[in-house]
């Protein structure tokens, strides 16, 4: 019965198959059609149907095909927005205008303004697209749009932007899908907080497979898959005041071969879809995330725990940048060893490191982790407890590591661990259980390429190659910032010291202190901390400072960098402070301060509030801290500690509790004031003392002279002196200049300009009561109020190109005087309206407000004068064409009397007897509009009262 059914089924199947294969059912022969009128009718109707269908399809293309834009440009385009042709651009959203050579987005209403250039690339092209931009206080993001499908719309385009989120800046990239939703592909935090008017350069090199991103000409993101192929190009912004200074697009001129090779190592041939899938993956899924592309890391002994680890071309790569502390452990435990790892960061400044002391490949209990911080500003170490909770131990500030190859090594002698970075010991005497332990690699939220990993037994000199390197990394020998042989020797001795030491946390501290031992003189300054703060010269400017029970106490622990300055200048010295932490840790000292009431341009040495380390560095003119380094020390706890700073003319040394921590640190801020500081801690400062510098370092002893000569212009004299300045020998050339014929009243004979060198200044020790009739050929005491001022070779340059006034305080006070300044304004078409001059008679040293101004316009073609009101608003009083050559050195002379002043340019009097608004005298400051402007020299001389 069953067989019969089967036969029937098979029979029916065959019947259908025969019918289908024969096709005669569907397609009759021509003879059949000719002989059958019904078939003829069917054929005609079928023909009619096909005709309609064909006509319809042809009609679609003939009549309804879209009218594509014809691009104006192909191949290459560059624009500095000087001669802007609006017809070449399509404004999608926003209010885009060209102003002062920049394309600026001014609308604050539109969500994502964009403007597109009529330039098209073919899908198979390679496009290099760069833009220089700045983001003002009203902007949140600016960047470039590329690989656009249409110049008219947002969808189907890629975008890379510098974006502000809170105070943090990010580099973001992604694409707009058909839904016009932005799909992020990467988001990298940038070092440092986002600053208003910050500028940067973005470059993208893209083809139809992927793109690379450069920030400030540095490759930061590699091989991000392109969802849409090259097409149209444009700019985009979020918020207003986003300005583009220039753009450059080069189609098919780009060469991606160099980066492609590197990119292949990171992503291989992953297509866009799989990359997006990766992007969508959420971390913490353990071993399942490991998808080696070319090689299986496990086959060479690496046990990935999380992240995506692949072996390619002799490197082990962790490519899942979202993963927090992605790690892979080596399967074989060793009792003692020396592990050396070469690693580098292709995308972010830091994030890579090693783990050691692991009890098993999947356990972090009591293991140590050391790695570069995410921003690359330092290197830290910490330990996991038995519950796997990480606790930081120490932090080592570093210069930005960038993409340089870094060499980490771990020496496990069986009882302790020693850690070195680029052959320099940084952490030592880390306790070890003694049992066999595993080590591993770690990568925190970034891609890390581990180029070389090798291990050798601690007691055996022969290296055991764990992961053979396919090709020897060129960077290994060339780029690695290896120390000099001297450094290595020091490092070796340091290791020896630390091995011998019984202190398990101060392994790198060398207990030698010859300089301190030489301090035998009485202090030139000794704090007493009696009475009230107001009765002293201490000037608190951040934090809650008070004097209690003979100590100076900062009692607010909720904040960083609380500070107090001492309003008395000193030169080269040994600064000693003893203090204890009542709560938290973060106490320290300030020195080299340019002003007693500002941390701008001041050095800081203090306990790190987060790590057991001493941090040292300086604040720049914008209060941005620049770390010079950090050294691990024992936790300060609540004990009394002594911090000594030996400040020489160009360097300084740090001592903690009488032991030298580090020496010969470059002295950046060379001001004469000192201060104290705390961060997130309550600190009780018991003593502050200043000792004259001993002769052991070759510096003159007791160089801390009274303020008159060393810092002659910090404070104005109580009453402008009428005494003539002690005349110095006048150089013949300057005498000639002073006696050059002019049409205006000349300074009195006593007002001869005096020029001195630093050495002369330091050697002259005028009494404090002497007038500040000074002669200042350098800018040592100058204080930037705004702008970016760079002192160099006795000159100072203002390089910020923003179209605002930038002021440099000279701390120079006068009532009747002659002031000369030699300056050079840049000769550059981009900054043709650059200006420079003098603001004088200001009531305060740190502001242009209420001061008179005289300055050049447009590189020197004109000169204007006027005054700033109390709100800093300029009010013009006059001007004159002077027709100076841009780029050449000019001399601007002001002869200021009690009620009038004269303006002299290159010995030619431009205006005379101009009225002053204030007869009280004031400070003299330099001012620029845009830049760069270099001030070569200033000459100040007080004069006898003439027109009062």
């Amino acid at each position, binding site marked *: 019965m069953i067989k019969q059914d089967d036969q029937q089924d098979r029979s029916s199947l065959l019947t259908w198959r025969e019918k289908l294969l024969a096709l005669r059912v569907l397609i009759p022969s021509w003879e059949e059609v000719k002989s059958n009128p019904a078939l003829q009718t*069917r054929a005609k*109707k*079928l023909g*009619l*149907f096909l005709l*309609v*269908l064909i006509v*319809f*399809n042809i*009609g*679609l*293309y*003939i*009549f*309804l*095909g*879209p*009218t594509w834009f014809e691009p104006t440009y192909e191949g290459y385009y560059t624009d500095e927005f000087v001669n802007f042709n609006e017809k070449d651009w399509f404004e999608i959203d926003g209010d885009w205008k060209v102003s002062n050579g920049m394309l600026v987005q001014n609308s604050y209403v539109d969500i994502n303004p964009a403007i597109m250039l009529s330039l098209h690339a073919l899908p198979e092209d390679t496009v290099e697209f760069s833009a220089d931009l700045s983001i003002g206080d009203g902007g949140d993001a600016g960047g470039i749009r590329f690989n656009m*499908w*249409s110049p*008219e*719309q*947002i*969808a*189907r385009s890629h975008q890379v932007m510098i974006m502000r989120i809170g105070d943090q800046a990010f580099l973001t990239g992604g694409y707009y899908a*058909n*839904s*016009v939703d932005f799909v992020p592909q990467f988001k990298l935090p940038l070092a440092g907080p986002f600053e208003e008017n910050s500028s940067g350069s973005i470059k993208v090199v893209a083809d139809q497979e992927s793109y690379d991103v450069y920030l400030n000409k540095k490759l930061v993101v590699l091989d991000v898959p392109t969802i849409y192929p090259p097409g149209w190009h444009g700019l985009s912004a979020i918020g207003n005041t986003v300005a583009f200074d220039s753009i450059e697009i080069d189609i098919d001129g780009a060469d991606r071969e160099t980066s492609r090779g590197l990119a292949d190592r990171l992503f291989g041939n992953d297509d866009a879809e799989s990359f997006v899938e990766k992007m969508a993956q959420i971390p913490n899924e353990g071993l399942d995330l490991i998808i080696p592309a070319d090689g299986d890391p496990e086959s060479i002994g690496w046990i990935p725990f999380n992240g995506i680890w692949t072996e390619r071309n002799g490197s082990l790569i962790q490519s899942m940048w979202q993963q927090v502390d992605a790690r892979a452990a080596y399967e074989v435990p060793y009792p003692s060893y020396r592990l050396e790892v070469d690693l580098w960061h292709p995308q972010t400044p830091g994030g890579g490191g090693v783990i050691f002391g692991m009890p098993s490949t999947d356990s972090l209990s009591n293991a140590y982790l050391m790695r570069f911080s995410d921003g690359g500003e330092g290197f830290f170490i910490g330990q996991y407890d038995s519950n796997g909770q990480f606790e930081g131990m120490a932090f080592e500030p570093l210069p930005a590591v960038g993409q340089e190859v870094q060499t980490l090594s771990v020496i496990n002698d069986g009882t302790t661990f020693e850690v070195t970075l680029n052959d320099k010991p940084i952490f030592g005497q880390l306790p070890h259980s003694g049992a066999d332990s595993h080590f591993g690699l770690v990568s925190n939220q970034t891609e890390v390429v581990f180029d070389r990993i090798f291990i050798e037994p601690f007691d055996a000199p022969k290296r055991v190659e764990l992961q053979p390197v396919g090709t020897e990394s060129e960077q290994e020998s060339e780029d690695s910032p290896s120390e000099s042989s001297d450094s290595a020797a020091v490092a070796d001795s340091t290791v020896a010291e630390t091995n011998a030491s019984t202190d398990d946390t101060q392994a790198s501290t060398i207990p030698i202190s010859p300089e301190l031992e030489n301090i035998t003189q009485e202090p030139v300054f000794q704090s007493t901390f009696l009475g009230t703060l107001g009765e002293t010269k201490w000037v608190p400017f951040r934090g809650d400072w008070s004097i209690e029970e003979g100590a100076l106490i900062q009692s607010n622990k909720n904040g960083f960098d609380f500070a107090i300055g001492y309003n008395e200048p000193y030169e080269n010295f040994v600064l000693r402070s003893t203090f204890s932490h009542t709560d938290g840790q973060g106490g320290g000292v300030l020195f080299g301060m340019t002003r007693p009431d500002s941390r701008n341009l001041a050095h800081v040495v203090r306990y790190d509030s987060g790590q057991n380390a001493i941090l040292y560095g300086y604040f720049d003119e914008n209060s941005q801290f620049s770390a010079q380094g950090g050294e691990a020390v024992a936790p300060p706890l609540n004990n009394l500690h002594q911090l000594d700073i030996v400040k020489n003319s160009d360097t300084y040394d740090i001592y903690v509790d009488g032991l030298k921590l580090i020496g010969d640190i470059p002295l950046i801020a060379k001001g004469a004031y000192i201060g104290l500081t705390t961060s997130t801690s309550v600190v009780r400062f018991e003593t502050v003392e200043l000792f004259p510098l001993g002769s052991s370092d070759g510096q003159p002893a007791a160089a801390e002279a009274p303020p008159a000569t060393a810092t002659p212009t910090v404070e104005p004299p109580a009453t402008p002196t009428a005494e003539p300045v002690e005349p110095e020998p006048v150089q013949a050339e300057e005498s000639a200049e002073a006696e050059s014929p002019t049409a205006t009243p000349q300074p009195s004979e006593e007002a001869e300009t005096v020029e001195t060198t630093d050495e002369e200044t330091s050697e002259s020790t005028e009494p404090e009561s002497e007038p500040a009739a000074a002669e200042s050929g350098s800018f040592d005491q100058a204080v930037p109020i705004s702008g970016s001022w760079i002192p160099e070779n006795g000159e100072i340059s203002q390089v910020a190109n923003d179209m605002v006034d930038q002021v440099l305080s000279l701390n120079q006070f006068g009532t009747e005087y002659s002031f000369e300044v030699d300056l050079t304004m840049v000769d550059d078409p981009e900054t043709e309206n650059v200006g420079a001059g003098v603001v004088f008679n200001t009531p305060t040293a740190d502001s242009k407000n209420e001061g008179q101004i005289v300055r050049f316009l447009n590189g020197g073609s004109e000169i204007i004068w006027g005054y700033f009101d109390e709100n800093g608003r300029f009010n013009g009083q006059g001007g004159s064409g002077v027709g100076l050559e841009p780029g050449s050195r000019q001399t601007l002379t002001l002869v200021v009397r009690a009620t009038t002043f004269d303006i002299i340019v290159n010995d030619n009097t431009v205006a005379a007897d101009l009225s002053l608004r204030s007869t009280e005298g004031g400070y003299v400051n330099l001012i620029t509009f845009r830049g760069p402007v270099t001030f070569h020299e200033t000459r100040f001389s007080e004069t006898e009262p003439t027109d009062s």
Partner: protein
Amino acid sequence: MTQFSKHQDTLKKYFEKFDLSQFKLPTLPDWFWPPFQAFLFSRMVVWLAGYFGEIMIKAGWEKDFYHLSPDNIFLDILARWDSGFYINIVEEGYMLVYGRISNVAFFPLYPMLTSLVDVLFNNPLLSGVIVSHISFLIALIYLFRLTTLLCDEDTAKRTIFYISVFPTSLFFSAVYTESLFLCVSVAAVYYAHKRNWELATIFTLLAGVTRITGLLVFGVVGLEWMRSHGWTLLTCYKKEAWQNLWQGIKKDWYSLLFILLAPLGLLSHMAFLGDQFQDPMAFWSVQSAFNRHNLGFLGILMRDFVPILSQNFWTGGIWWNVLLDTSAAIFALAAAPFVLRRFGEGFAIYILLSVLVPLSSGTGSMTRYILVLFPLFMLMGVWGQRESVHRFFQTFFPIFLGIFTAVFVNWIFLA
């Protein structure tokens, strides 16, 4: 015999040879005149109302809108609102801007025919108006013949009259797809009922590339084919129905295969969109930009209609266009059972889906959407057998057609 009499004889002989009684003017078929008369009457109402509405009423915002032919009001008034998209397609081709209103949302047959006619006139607006009017006249003819086929000639006359003067029938004259869609959809159904499946398929194909709802015509034709072979939805529970269908497939498989080719039109359009914009569903992708969000038809009715109940009719503070649209939708839905009973499930389903699909995302333009639901008007034609009903339609439809036209030409959004 004088010379004059000679000439008289010649003429007499000549006229004797020329038999006037044999001379006949060419006659048009009987199915032409009723549609033509309805066409003429209704278009005259539209044009007169539109013209006087345009020149007599100055709303004040006219300058804020486009006027494609300001020098010819008779033409200009027929291009409002969506007309601009069709003209734009004719002039510049399709355009796709994601996230914004794009002309790619509109189907190609109407602008294609307009472009074809525009080859002669080089005036897209005039060409569009010509296409609309010719399509409308042909649509009336097909509707007349279909209704005659399914009912009788009197019903057919009333049907074409009602649809011609329906208040929103102004869209048959405007640069909109209503007239063309009515033409091809009625023609498809007419040939389906005539069992001319090949022509029915061709018009179904054309309906599918005129509007998205043209796909429903495919269903109507398909159901008609099945009905012609003894299978209906109402009898599908019977074994005989399936036996009949099976026999029909075996016997008339060629027609069935032909009908199944009808979606090739839409597929061609999608292939074109995929080729040009890399998005075969571009017409669908941009729908969100038209502010249509799917809430379900009940949700839409609750959202749009319920608030009207609390509005003040006495002061006129009501959403009049929502009221009209909602009423139109309710009327169509309520009429569906009657259509089912009178004309079968194919027409009823066609009405239901044609209303419910757009209704699920909004009531907007419903008075225009029901304009092409010819079974509704056939039902009205049947109802018009009653003199009172007929007088009602005959009186109020033209009046409101004039009002609506005056509203439309003054850039007040009607539908």
